[in-house]
């Protein structure tokens, strides 16, 4: 039985596609799933940096397609998660060096021996987007609660609908205190505007910058708040019904205040 082929896309760049791909992939691998991450951002690869395997790259996807190496030779196995692999993009080539058909063939082949193939899509809706989507049968649309990100996400949702690719949304970088004060759109607002199903809510967390600097997926450290959140997303992706984390739950100070008032 072949695995699920999921593209992680957004339209707008910099909303957290690569971070999402790495962490959802790592969370799935942690649960024992066989996962392959594919960097489809030819020319601007970054999945290797975020995963921290940049030094171990020998071959890339373009070389696989051009027949200069075997697919399994290009795959990099993660040292921390047994069942996590990664197929790097080429850095010095153009996105046009891969056709939609060629990309699809690689993804389908990978899915034969994996439970999940997660494709990290480039920003924009040009050729790179089209080939990243070509191999997928499902999509995760990542957006942030900002006007321009939502407008771009809407454009991508339209394109995925046209291709009849089912999708769910991850709302990234939510700042609960700004939502509360009305200065940021709520997750409900975002889902309503996109009329799409919610897969996950990820709060804005500066830990992400730190872990990316070090090339470590945040899910490695179970004490981190985001580790729990990505694990929940992985479970939802697997079909479990998991309640969404209430970001507005009062922190320690909030709870103390309540106690004070109650007292």
């Amino acid at each position: 039985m072949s695995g699920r082929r999921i593209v992680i896309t957004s339209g707008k760049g910099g909303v957290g596609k690569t971070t999402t791909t790495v962490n959802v992939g790592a969370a799935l691998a942690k649960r024992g799933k066989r996962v392959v991450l594919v960097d489809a951002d030819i020319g601007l690869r970054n999945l290797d940096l975020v995963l921290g395997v940049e030094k171990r790259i020998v071959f890339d996807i373009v070389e696989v397609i051009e027949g200069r190496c075997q697919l399994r030779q290009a795959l990099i196995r993660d040292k921390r998660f047994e069942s996590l692999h990664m197929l790097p993009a080429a850095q010095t080539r153009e996105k046009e060096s891969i056709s939609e058909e060629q990309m699809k063939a690689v993804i389908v082949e990978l899915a034969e021996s994996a439970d999940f193939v997660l494709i990290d899509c480039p920003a924009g809706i040009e050729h790179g987007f089209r080939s990243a989507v070509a191999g997928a049968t499902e999509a995760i649309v990542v957006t942030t609660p900002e006007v321009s990100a939502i407008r771009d996400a809407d454009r991508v949702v339209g394109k995925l609908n046209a291709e009849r690719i089912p999708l769910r949304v991850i709302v990234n970088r939510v700042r609960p205190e700004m939502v509360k004060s009305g200065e940021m759109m709520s997750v409900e607002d975002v889902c309503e505007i996109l009329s799409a199903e919610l897969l996950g809510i990820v709060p804005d967390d500066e830990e992400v910058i730190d872990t990316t600097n070090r090339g470590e997926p945040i899910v490695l450290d179970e004490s981190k708040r985001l580790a729990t959140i990505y694990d929940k997303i992985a479970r939802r992706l697997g079909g479990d019904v998991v309640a969404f984390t209430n970001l507005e739950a009062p922190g320690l100070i909030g709870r103390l205040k309540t106690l004070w008032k109650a007292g």
Partner: protein
Amino acid sequence: MLDFFNKFLRPAQPSGATAKERLRLVLLSDHLSLAPDVVEALKADLLGVISRYVEIDRAHADVTFEQRAGELAMLASVPITGVRRVPYEAAPPPPPAPASPDPVRPPAPRAPAAVVSERVPASEPQALELPMASEPTAAVKASNAARRRRRRRKANAAAKRNAQQQGAVQQMNTTAQA
């Protein structure tokens, strides 16, 4: 206490709400211009319905969308040439498509409808105005739901128009033979 100060220090509407409202409008217009041929099909249908009740000048009819304070409006400018005593059962076949259909663009300024029948006792310009989004949220939902339907219909409409055009060509051929 803090809320009290916030009320004084903050502008009336929090920016999150402003953002949502702006997005609602901009996406509505993005979606409308997504498929110019869909707007073209809408125009054909609309004129078909109107012409069941009044005689119109199809060549100078125009349907556009405009953003006004707080809502997106559909503006149909349809020159009326006469009134039908008995409404038609079915719409007459649409005329051949204009040379360069670009329905998303507003119409070029034009003289008021030249042919106005004396049977229409109106001195006002003959234009129908149909506000599109009176209730915001519903409009977005409708527009999103409609988007999927539109895509499906887009293909059908294109096929239908092709068929109609072929029909028209056939008709012309028949006339030529006669």
